[in-house]
């Protein structure tokens, strides 16, 4: 799974890959979209931070409650007014909310991260 294939997801506006620190490596943006490379760079940084925080919370939750099934995390999504971003590992995709398929996006992102 690569960025061009992520752009085939329903409603995909942008796809991007990033480093462990959140710096943008590569990206695709749908023509006519309001998404800019600068927004993707910020988004990538926030996603690295959010995944780290979510891992902290998942680990703490499992430890405190004894409930299992959170770790290892399979991804994080921020749901905006018009679009949602789904990220994991070093890949992310931005999709229009009216067309979004979250499960397909999480599965595709898993495949992108594994490849």
């Amino acid at each position, binding site marked *: 799974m690569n960025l061009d294939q992520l752009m085939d997801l329903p409603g995909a506006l942008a796809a991007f890959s990033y480093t462990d620190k959140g710096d943008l490596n590569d990206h695709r943006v749908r023509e006519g979209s*309001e*998404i*800019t490379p*600068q*927004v993707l760079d*910020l*988004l990538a940084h*926030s996603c690295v931070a*959010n995944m780290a*925080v*979510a891992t902290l*919370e*998942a680990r703490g*939750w499992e430890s*405190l*409650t004894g*409930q*299992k*099934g*959170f*770790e*290892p*995390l*399979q*991804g*994080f*999504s*921020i*749901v*905006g*007014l*018009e*679009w949602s971003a*789904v990220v994991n590992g070093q890949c992310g995709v931005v999709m229009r*909310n009216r067309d979004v*398929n*979250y*499960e397909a996006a*999480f599965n595709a992102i898993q495949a992108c991260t594994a490849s």
Partner: protein
Amino acid sequence: MHIVKQLMAIPGVIAAGEFAYRGDRFSYEGALTAEFARMAAILCRSNTMSVNMQSEIFDSFAENCGCRPVQGWIVRGSQVAVCNIGNYFAFIENRPELLNDVMTIMRAKVGDVGGDLLVSLYARIGGDVKEALY
């Protein structure tokens, strides 16, 4: 039907709830103790505030880029996912199509979240919002 009850009627939804303001006012249904639900409400409120702050930064670089105001977030674990829209949260199993169904219901029932998150959260518990917050 109330959102939480509607969510709990779906097979695979473990727990669902609602929180307000600081996260310490909450209600819930499902397989959580009251203490775990309190922790979940605080955790969800904290993450919601955090992603809202992030979206304001995005917006300052690219006004009206489509992110702000943030409607919610999802964390997907190995077997369980946590969905949050506005001041509602749901713990769900990772079953085929369940995540899409839950998100569709939550977005439709909660409606679009307004720009001022704190006012929106405080308004859920009543009282004079302006006097309390400003």
